[in-house]
């Protein structure tokens, strides 16, 4: 197991180098806003822009620029400087990441808490009216884009502009860089509606997945044996049935956490939550390349590490995988 984890960590480093390279090529070498122009501000003369290009090394060959970027990153853990917000990218990420993690954790809890029970109920009551109604609901949730669902939720359910003012709305997220980790009582009310919106489609997907997977498992011989032994149906389903369903769910969860970061961008914009998603969106809009690079690198690192965690968890849950990977 240790060798497996070590091997994966080494691959993680290789992948991160590739990510930095691709990001650099996409945002620095492809046509985009010129960092020197951003730094110079409006009305800058071409001479000033040229001086700044020289100062930033933007007139040097791309491989020299890339080398310096990696050098600063590795030796000084320096992700660069945002010329849009006039602060270091590292400090921006440190301030924003806990906010996005708060959104992500809230959403994951909701979608697991809602999606898995619905899937179990549908699998157990397969073909009945309750199963059909739940699956129609799931289909609707999958079909609704997060951005649209967010706006509808705001106009319907938010306290400031909603028809039924139930939940806190856009702009209710507390200031001061708070997150679920530092001020849960203040942050949680502002996260209910955004997390519900972000979790909706995932919960629906998980409900359908659990339903399909559990239905198959419940038809297995060992389940029949368990029932024949006189075990209670709840034990059969939750202990024996769900154990086999858990491994693919964890695999799916690892992949979905990456997709979740993409969804967080939309939800953070709609609900004005100052997290990594909004930071990335604003950076892309303004061509703030150092911030874009920092955000992409962080996102990639998170996804890779989460997948590593998922692989380890799978191995722990399934001895066959452990043996295969050894």
């Amino acid at each position, binding site marked *: 197991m240790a060798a497996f984890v070590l091997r994966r960590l080494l691959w993680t480093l290789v992948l991160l180098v590739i990510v930095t390279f691709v990001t650099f090529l996409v945002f620095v070498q492809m*046509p*985009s*806003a*010129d960092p020197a*122009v*951003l*730094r*110079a*501000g*409006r*009305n*800058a*003369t*071409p*001479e*000033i*822009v040229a*001086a*700044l290009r*020289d*100062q930033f090394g933007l007139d040097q060959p791309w491989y020299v620029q890339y080398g310096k970027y990696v050098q600063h990153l590795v030796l000084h853990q320096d992700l660069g*400087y*945002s*010329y*849009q*917000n*006039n*602060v270091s990218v590292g400090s*921006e990420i440190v*301030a924003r990441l806990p906010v996005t993690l708060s959104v992500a954790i809230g959403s994951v809890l909701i979608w697991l808490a809602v999606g898995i029970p619905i899937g179990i109920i549908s699998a157990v009551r397969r073909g009945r009216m309750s199963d059909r109604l739940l699956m129609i609901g799931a289909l609707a949730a999958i079909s609704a884009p997060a951005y649209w669902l967010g*706006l509808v939720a*705001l106009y319907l359910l938010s306290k*400031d*502009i909603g028809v039924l003012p139930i939940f806190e*709305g*856009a*702009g209710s997220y507390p*200031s*001061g*860089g708070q997150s679920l980790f530092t001020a849960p009582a203040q942050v949680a009310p502002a996260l209910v509606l955004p997390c519900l919106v972000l979790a909706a489609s995932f919960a629906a997907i998980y409900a359908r997945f659990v339903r399909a997977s559990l239905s198959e498992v419940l038809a297995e011989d060992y389940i029949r044996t368990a029932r024949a032994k006189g075990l209670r149906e709840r034990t059969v389903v939750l202990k024996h049935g769900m154990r086999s369903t858990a491994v693919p769910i964890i695999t799916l969860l690892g992949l979905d956490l990456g997709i979740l970061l993409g969804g967080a961008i939309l939800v953070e*914009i*709609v609900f*004005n*939550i*100052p997290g990594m998603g*909004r*930071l990335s*969106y*604003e950076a892309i*809009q*303004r*061509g703030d390349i150092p911030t874009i690079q920092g955000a992409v690198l962080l996102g990639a690192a998170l996804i890779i590490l989460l997948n590593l965690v998922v692989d380890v968890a799978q191995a722990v849950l399934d001895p066959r995988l452990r043996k295969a990977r050894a």
Partner: protein
Amino acid sequence: MSLNVGRALGARKRSAAAAALVGAVAVLAGCGGSDSAGPAQTLANTPIAPVKGVPGGQATLLSAADVDSLDPGISDYNVGLMVLQATQRTLYAFAPDDATKVVPDLAKGLPKISDDGKTVTVTIRSGVRFAPPVDREVTSRDIKYAMERAFTKQVPSGYAASYFGSIVGVPKKPNAGDYQEISGIQTPDDHTLVLRLSKPDAGLVAQVLVKGITAPVPKEYARKFDQQNPSTYGEHVASTGAYMVERDASGKITGWEPGRELRLVRNPNWDPKTDFRPAYLDAVTIAGGNADSAVAARRTLSGQGFICCDAGSPPVELVRSAMARTPEQVKLFPARLTNWVALNTTIAPLDNLNVRRALMAGVNRSALRLPRGGPLMGDLATGYLPPGLQGYEEAGGAHQGADLDFNAHPEGDAEVAKKYMLAAKADGLPIDDQGIYTGDTKILAVAANSTPDNQTAEAFQAEAKKLGFDIELRLVPREVVFTNFCSTPAKKVAVCFLGFGSDTPDPYSMLVLPFDGRAIREEGNLNISQLNDPKVNAAIDKAASLSIGEGRLDAWADVDEQILEQAPAIPYVWTKKALVSSSDVQLVPNTYTTMPDLSFTSIRK
């Protein structure tokens, strides 16, 4: 200067705002709606004069963007300018409802200009003090340092070299080196600032003493921050205005979370006797990240204590609805911005004057205005000088260029267009007897691939087609429209769409950068039309050399007329700006920044 390069060479915020032109376009983004009020109809502005308020209370601005910087030497975008006006005292400023006349702010009176036009002398007001942690009275030396640091590489102001480049002793390569004293900025005593110029440029320099680099910076405090590159003074800025960014007891700024929130509180050292601003509010919060202006505007209109929005106006339908239901919650006023279609005078067939005049005559400009909100959000433009800018009235106001038949009917005049097309035929161009172009030359037009720019471009494509011109429309990401296409003459782009605004009250920058033939550059070119007409250039030189009392504005009006005669660009809308507020907010906009004036806005009791 003006091309609000933030607003013109680019804009945004807004827009931003990548390249200057990109910025200007971003300012206009987000407008849409129907032209139901009629093609040529224009709608009145709302009253914007300051109203006496009641001290106290707090307000929150729902903004899409954050300040570009808190450093007065750098800040030059909408939100930044708004905060700058509330937190800093520049030598001169504007009353909120009149961006054509400067009023003394830190200065005690109007600047004195020497007879040879090479010296500007300003007397500084007594009793203005820096906020904590500096806590001392402002002197002329603080302004000298503020101006000098704006020429360093650590504080690239962007406009210092353009506006103040004629001061004796400025670095030969501005913003490329470290700090050095500038001999032409002199302080004979604590309350006198003298600017000595290398050429008779005092008329212009006196007009731009409203800019942020004239806000005092205490050298003994700022020097350590200015030695870093880039300078970190903005994160420790010392205010002189009625407000300052919230600080803790140690003096550390705690009220700014970049990209998220900025909290302004009263400056305890501010003395109202020294300021023309009433500063009613106790505190102001600028809440960033409100990217969806529809949501932000709805929250504002239905909530309490809110103001909306920053660079762009709220959606036009919301503005229209609010004006009908709660007009006291809407402020609609000229944005000092002209949108035009630039016609490249060096590319066939647009290199023919009669073709350009035919297009100017034939294009229905209300069709181009429609995607930007129709008559509610702007008057049809017939000249380049927008309302709210000096020289607008002298140029004929809303009837600029009305004596030119090809410019007299902005809704389009087919007969006049035909007349000029036939004249172009006489010049040898392939045009039939009906005045329709029959050549196979395609005209390359480049526009942003987002609304409203793409829709305006498509409307122009349809209008030009009526005269037989085949417009090859290339829609590209907003941030590269100018940097990669329109501002690079080698790209041979024939038609571009831009908004041009002025960040000074003077018409200089509005007309020189986009139309002075000597300003054409291989890269970063703002003269998109590449107009290089000796008569226009000479008229520009004449206007630039005059002071206000010598007929400067009449001379700029003459320049406007002469440029129109060459038809290098089709002006189609003088854009308006809309701001909305909650019912308890007595909002006062500032026509210079086109943002709320935080020092005049108040809470209704």
